[in-house]
């Protein structure tokens, strides 16, 4: 039988980068930008987190460099789509392709290696031990994690507060739902969109830093579709930060489960497909139901109006 506690423990660790990316993705989604470049943002950050940590011999400089790399890609992306009016999907896909190639390529001139670069273990992201957590069953799985993991667990709550209790959050939500209404109320929607996208870049930067520095190495393609998993998590959660915490956790645990399964010879692939199947259902099913029910409602209302008239 599997060890549930270690499964959960691993799940939290897997969920953390997905959560960070998902929160960034959610911000972009709130201003109605469907960001497909998450994978690129994060991979670029992974690479530069390692570069920063290695060059400055300091893991925190690594985190900073990762965040800067994430913000830089976000700046490029947002200038292209908001200023130059380039199709966001194409722009995102080209960023992903470019970053994948660039990070592989740059391993050679920077580290004189290919495929992966492992740093000395002193440059790993330190974990924090909270004494009293050990004594609580199950919750103890949260112990011995890096500060970024704790931050990722806190972020949904922070975002919830920002979105629903501050003016910036209100502006963001209305910009996404009806930009004209926001403009008519004097909101600078372009500024709102830029801010959301740059925060998205910074959060992907943190995710990249956590991914790379927790294992003190860079591996080509180490994001391994997490950007898209995050996208699925946000879609499934209907872009609600607290629900997204749940879906990211679910996907984190399912990822650790699939690793355990594949080592014991079972098919883990179907488990990998679950996030996407669920997101697909979440995207399509409510629309179908609404379409049918609205149609019926409208028809009956019209029939009533017509009958009223003829009497």
């Amino acid at each position, binding site marked *: 039988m599997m060890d549930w506690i270690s499964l959960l423990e691993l799940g939290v660790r897997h969920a953390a980068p997905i959560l960070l990316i998902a929160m960034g993705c959610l911000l972009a989604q709130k201003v109605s930008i469907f960001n497909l470049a998450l994978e690129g943002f994060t991979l670029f950050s992974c690479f530069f987190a390692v570069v920063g940590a290695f060059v400055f011999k300091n893991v925190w400089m690594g985190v900073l460099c990762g965040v800067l790399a994430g913000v830089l890609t976000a700046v490029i992306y947002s200038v292209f789509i908001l200023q130059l009016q380039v199709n966001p999907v194409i722009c995102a896909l080209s960023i992903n*392709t*470019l970053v994948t190639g660039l990070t592989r390529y740059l391993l050679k*001139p920077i580290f004189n290696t290919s495929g992966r670069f492992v740093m000395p273990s002193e440059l790993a992201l330190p974990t924090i031990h909270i004494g009293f957590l050990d004594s609580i069953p199950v919750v103890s799985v949260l112990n011995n994690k890096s500060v970024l993991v704790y931050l990722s667990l806190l972020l949904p709550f922070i975002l919830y507060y920002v979105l629903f209790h501050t003016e910036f959050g209100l502006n963001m939500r209305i910009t996404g739902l009806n930009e004209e209404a926001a403009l008519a109320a004097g909101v600078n929607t372009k500024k709102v969109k830029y801010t959301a996208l740059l925060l998205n870049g910074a959060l992907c930067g943190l995710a990249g830093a956590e991914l790379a520095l927790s294992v003190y190495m860079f591996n080509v393609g180490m994001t391994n579709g997490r950007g898209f998993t995050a996208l699925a998590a946000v879609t499934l959660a209907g872009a609600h930060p607290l629900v997204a915490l749940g879906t990211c956790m679910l996907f984190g645990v399912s990822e650790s489960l699939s690793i355990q399964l594949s080592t014991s010879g079972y098919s883990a692939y179907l488990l990998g497909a679950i996030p996407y199947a669920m997101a*697909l259902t979440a*995207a399509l099913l409510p629309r179908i139901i609404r379409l049918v029910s609205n149609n019926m409602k409208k028809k009956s209302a019209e029939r009533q109006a017509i009958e009223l008239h003829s009497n």
Partner: protein
Amino acid sequence: MKDKTSNLIRNLINSSNSIVAVLIAFLIGGFMVLLVGESPINAYSAILKGAFGSPTAIRNTVRFAIQVMLMAYSFSVCNRCGYFNISQEAQLYTSALAMVFVSFWTEGLPGPLRLVLMILAAAAAGALTCLIPAVAKFKLGVNEVVVGVMLNYLTKFICQHLIAFSPIAAKRTSSIVSIEIPEHIPVPVITVGAVLIVIAYAFILRSTIPGHRLTVTGKNKQFAQASGIDATKVLLMAAVTGGVLSALCCMGEILGYFHMIYNEFAAGMGTDGMTAAFIGNNTPIGMMFGSLLLGALKSGSVLLSVLTEVPTELIDCVQGLIMFFATIKFFNAAQIDLKRRRVVE
């Protein structure tokens, strides 16, 4: 007469966008080569040699070019009417699975019949997969990109599962592949077939009623509808065509080269097609050049690491850069036109 020349100029301006994008990409690529202490000239001549230096090289270039081109056409036919065909990889996976399963289930039937059944199944699978996001977009108003991306991953995992844990899984090998299928199509047939598809595509688009309806609907859906063209039907037909073109690409690869399904064989193929479509500005001829360029880059990369110290990933970077810059309108034909008119006035 004067308008004919201005039309020519407009086409030139449009294609010069792509040429500038490609030049910038190669220029930046050149700097990247300098970064690893190699000469850009050496690197690019190695690629050239790898792409065209020997009969094998040319064969490889042609193979990749055909593969990219079919994906480009598949993307472009949908893009013409505003449907972003991002689920191309899903179409490749489902049509590949359809072929292998049909081959597996029809053992005992005569060979040619099996081949026909496989081809039909693949085309149907590709078309259906392409239709899912299209129906979501045009009937339900759901962003087709969300649906497409989710489909890509979903089918990738399902395909992995099936080639690892199902009757079509090859059990003897350590790598994850499907069983080998006995059906083959000789490579020259595929090449000729691809050329025929190109000609047919260009002909249908330019000279037939469906092609005309697609063009008009893509340019102005409201106009098409008011003229009595069933725009939704046209859009869904475009999606079906896109799916079938992806399936054709898959048939070429599997029946001509692989004879089995490799793990994640479709990865990146959609992006390749998209890039070629953008280089070629969605015109049949332009996309041919775009595909040839990408095909040459792919097959040329082999010699890059042999002859120089430059990592083969240079190719990925250059392709990413091309795609990146091809989306910017350096020259805008419509604007230049306006300026010219103003000067005349």
